[in-house]
């Protein structure tokens, strides 16, 4: 049987990276806004946490999201392996940077793996203490908190300096990944031209900076609050 073009064709595979990436960018944007709520009101944030608890729609969304991550990571690793093979076994003795080529564009796999590693830590800190507890039928997490009390959990996690450091490094990797990823998702799905090329790169940088900046702001604000 002939495999579909999203598997067999290089343009199709790129399209899968683009669509799965776009889905993750939307999620990251939503997550950043959701975190921003915690800066304004703990009650409002906990309401969001309760909505995203062990409800069928939240569980379904979590599964779809996990699927998106798996597809994006799986394709990323697969494509990189193919690309290394295509590059050949003998490497250049001398390499220099070409003008206009961003550092992140050449290091997407490494940046992506750092993002993934950070994600594992993040899920242990939050998801395992919140939705997972509810799924297991618990009413109290390991910290003795209500699993829907996200505001207290944030305050606890970001009172530790080492967590703040880990998260900021993670956000840094994510920022670099997004600055290349956002304009690339348009380019890879064909939604780009000469006029829009610099515009989309600018949109990508602004978008990544706003989303990651909001994530970092929440972490820093809660750390400072813990010191007061």
């Amino acid at each position, binding site marked *: 049987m002939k495999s579909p073009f999203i598997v067999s064709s290089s*343009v199709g595979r790129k399209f899968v990276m683009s669509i799965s990436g776009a889905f993750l960018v939307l999620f990251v944007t939503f997550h950043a806004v959701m975190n921003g709520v915690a800066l304004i009101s703990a009650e409002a944030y906990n309401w969001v946490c309760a909505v995203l608890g062990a409800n069928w729609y939240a569980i379904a969304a979590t599964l779809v999201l996990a699927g998106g991550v798996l597809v994006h990571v799986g394709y990323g690793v697969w494509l990189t392996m193919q690309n290394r093979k*295509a590059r050949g076994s003998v490497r250049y003795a001398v390499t220099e940077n070409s003008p206009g080529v961003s550092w992140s564009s050449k290091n997407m796999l490494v940046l992506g793996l750092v993002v993934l590693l950070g994600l594992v830590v993040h899920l242990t800190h939050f998801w395992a203490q919140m939705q997972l507890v509810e799924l297991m039928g618990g009413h109290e997490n390991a910290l003795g908190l209500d699993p829907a009390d996200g505001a207290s959990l944030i305050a606890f996690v970001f009172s530790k300096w080492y967590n703040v450091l880990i998260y900021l490094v993670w956000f840094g990797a994510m920022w670099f990944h997004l600055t290349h990823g956002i304009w690339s998702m348009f380019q890879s799905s064909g*939604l780009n031209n000469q006029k829009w090329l610099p515009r989309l790169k600018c949109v990508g940088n602004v978008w990544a900076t706003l989303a990651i900046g909001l994530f970092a702001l929440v972490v820093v604000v809660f750390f400072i609050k813990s010191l007061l």
Partner: protein
Amino acid sequence: MENKLMNLTLKVWRQKNAKEKGGFETYPVEGISPDTSFLEMIDILNNKLIHEGKEPVAFDHDCREGICGMCSLYINGHAHGPDSEITTCQLHMRKFRDGDTITIEPWRSAAFPVVRDLVVERQAFDKILQAGGFVNVNTGGVPDANAIPIPKEDADESMDAAACIGCGACVATCKNGSAMLFVAARVSSLAKLPQGKVEAARRAKAMVAKMDELGFGNCTNTGACQAECPKGISVSHIARLHREFLSAKFKD
């Protein structure tokens, strides 16, 4: 302008044939004028090697005026050397300094195997073109040039893409060994013209399929190809290739 003769050290990749392992050889070259072209400088080296009874360095070249796409060479970490938007044959020694060590390597890509020294096999590009990089024309009388009006912007964009000389610098530069810029330039130049639209869907699918079959890598939008392309072809043509290919596939 100062016209001081230069003494240089060349580190050149030498490889007897496709099967044997290659390695770098170091050669000093003396008394090189800054107005010498890079290929003439290799001619001078080869002349010296022949007089010494050694094998000259094999390298590709033909028109030596930047239009045939035959010359290649990865010079000091750049396809076609350190200058921008030129081929190696148009590179002059004034871009280097007296006493410099210049490393010269062949294109490196699994789809472009080394044949000998600095010569690589680039037939893969011909095979991609044969798969669909053309317009079928029915025989008959010569059509009037003004019978098919084409907007100026479309004609300009088509010509920008058609400037591709198929040298392979994009593949040589790409960390993924991808030929996407080459295929995009061919598909894009024809897609912008009414004559090319008839076979647009078939062309995009056939050329991409052939490119994949020949072992080129996947594009990751680094843009290194555009930076090193001697004709300055933009990666925006790659976006058009995607549009052409995806719309053709979704229509299937």
